[in-house]
């Protein structure tokens, strides 16, 4: 399909070029806006504080957002298929608590880490099983497992905190290569792999098909249930990885680690342009929105705005990410009748203003 449009482009049909351009603008639109916002935030950060554009600060900035960024990656895929996973932060907490619990039980660390990841996979499989086998709504299931997995963490650790981890593992949390924190490099690799899987493989295309119309996808031979099961299991594993990173970054394992992160990760996914009604979104969009939130939070923290108040910014960004495109399309709707009369004219002039 791609090559055929390219062929038409080569033949120079003006309306085809317009169509292609519009499709490009529609695909790039939200990411472009996020990119501009990100640049603006960086410039504003530099104006607000001279410490902003230092490598030390950027190491800090990137390290701070890495757990939520890890949670947001598989969540993007799940939301594209029109499901939701609210239990991610509780799986993070469970993996962190299990790490501390097993370490205190004198398990060797090379055995503890895979066990944590396996526990995450099991937790994700439980979500997936309930959703796929019993056809339960994922919102209700994961609100339940949000409480359940957090409960398991408290059963494991109670209100103890375990902090005597071997120092050589601290690199997993706050070591750096150059100025890039090691966990951020993990995230970057995972993000690239995810982007390739979602946007360049048949498996990735099926995600959009399921999100767009599950019944239609099923009738076209997509194994929707298996795909969902895989997604939830992967989400569990990556959340457990985020739990390991979190534990080593703060050198502390507590049952309440990462409470409330699910909402931050979800906010980043929605702000990244992934549609809540499914079938739309890009990994790059989520990546940009994560970076945007991290930069804004960091810049405002540098000028002594407290963390709790920063949530106002996250909330406003989240809501405006949907309200603004909606308002734009409403405005465009109002001008549509005049446009439709001149469809035969080259449509190229309407290309630049196509953000949604």
């Amino acid at each position, binding site marked *: 399909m791609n090559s055929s449009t390219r062929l038409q482009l080569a033949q120079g049909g003006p309306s085809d070029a317009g169509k292609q351009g519009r499709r490009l603008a529609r695909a790039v639109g939200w990411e472009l806006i996020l990119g501009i916002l990100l640049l603006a935030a960086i410039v504003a950060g530099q104006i607000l504080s001279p410490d902003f554009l230092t490598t030390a600060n950027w190491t800090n900035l990137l390290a701070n957002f890495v757990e939520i960024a890890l949670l947001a990656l598989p969540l993007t895929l799940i939301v594209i298929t029109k499901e939701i996973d609210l239990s991610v932060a509780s799986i993070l907490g469970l993996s962190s608590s299990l790490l501390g619990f097993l370490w205190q039980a004198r398990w060797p660390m090379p055995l503890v880490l895979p066990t944590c990841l396996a526990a995450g996979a099991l937790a994700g499989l439980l979500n997936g099983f309930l959703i796929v086998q019993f056809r339960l709504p994922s919102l209700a299931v994961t609100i339940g497992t949000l*409480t359940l997995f957090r*409960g398991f963490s*408290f059963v494991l650790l109670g209100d103890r905190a375990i902090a005597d981890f071997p120092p050589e593992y601290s690199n997993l949390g706050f070591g750096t290569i150059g100025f890039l924190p090691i966990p951020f490099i993990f995230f970057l690799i995972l993000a690239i792999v995810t982007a390739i899987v979602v946007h360049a493989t048949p498996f990735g295309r099926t995600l959009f098909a399921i999100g767009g119309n599950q019944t239609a996808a099923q009738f076209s031979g997509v194994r929707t249930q298996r795909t969902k099961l895989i997604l939830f299991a992967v989400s569990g594993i990556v959340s457990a990885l985020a739990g390991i990173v979190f534990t080593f970054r703060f050198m502390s394992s507590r049952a309440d680690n990462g409470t409330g992160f699910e909402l931050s990760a979800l906010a980043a996914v929605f702000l990244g342009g992934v549609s809540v009604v499914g079938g739309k979104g890009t990994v790059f969009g989520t990546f940009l929105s994560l970076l945007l939130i991290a930069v804004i939070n960091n810049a405002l923290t540098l000028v002594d705005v407290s963390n709790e108040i920063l*949530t106002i910014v996250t909330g*406003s960004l989240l809501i405006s990410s*949907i309200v603004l495109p*909606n308002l734009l399309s409403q405005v465009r709707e109002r001008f549509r009748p005049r446009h439709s009369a001149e469809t035969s004219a080259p449509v190229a002039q309407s290309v630049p203003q196509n953000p949604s």
Partner: protein
Amino acid sequence: MKRDYLMGKFGGLSQAWERLLRSREAWLVLLLAVLVIGTASANTRFLGSQNIKDLMLNVSLIALLAIGQSIPIIMRQIDLSVGSIVGITAFLSGLIFFDHPNTPNLLVFLVGTGVGVLLGAINAALIIWGRVPSLIATLGTLYIYRGADYAWVHGRQINAANVPASFLALGNIGFLGLPLLMWIVLLFLVLAAVVLRQLPMGRECYAIGSNPTAAVLAGINVHRRVCMGFLFSGGIAGLTGVLWLARFGTVDATAGLGIEFQVVTAAVVGGVAITGGSGTVGGAALGALLLGVFNSALVVLRVPPFWQQAFQGTMLLVAISVDAYLAHRLAIRLRIKRSHL
């Protein structure tokens, strides 16, 4: 002839029996009874008057929020911002008493509820005019309201000494054997139940939840109903904030933090389907009661408190799985019935 008559009579009886069997509320009451009797026989302290009173007071706040939450959920919406609204109005009521100690209690109630309605109106405006799905809109306002709360409170705290005794008494003084707080909850429970069951307005909520498109085609003003649902849910959350102060006396910016999932859990355990279109406010209140009694039973039975959350999550999962199983069986039975026609 006589046989038919008898059949009819027994048929009617069995129908009533079946309706009772299928009613979520009946099962919840049964479960509650089993739980209470079982726990009390293991430890008689469970039925001590102080324990029951504490239990009732703790449950009332969650039950009230669950009643408010049910209306949006029945319409296939969700209101995640209730915890943050509680935080704002709880501190606001405390601040009113701090600045003007002689304010009449009723005025504080009106102001708190009014602010709740106002915040609910912002949610409604975003959902209806901004066309933001309610999950995202109220997730956003959850952040914004709580952030505004922190910015405004700025580390201050209201202590019981700043609140008039007559107001704190609301959580203590009994009327006909129940604390006043519970009567307020019961009042709203009955009000919401009657509206949902008897008035066209309430029936329309169920229609919207079962099939939004069909509701529009049937001429229901969906926007108006959804708007009212969020105003109600916001108002109830505002009222709960005021009662929060009456119950606890000490309030800072963190009142009601993270309570939203607990409220949704109570409603869903009580049979309010998260996919909309079914459930009652009575069920939601019973769900809150069941969760509260369960937690209290764990304490009395000396189970470490750390098990509470795990049990709560399991209960929600079991509740929705049973619902799905029953719905599946009903669908099969209907299919068989139709094929015999």
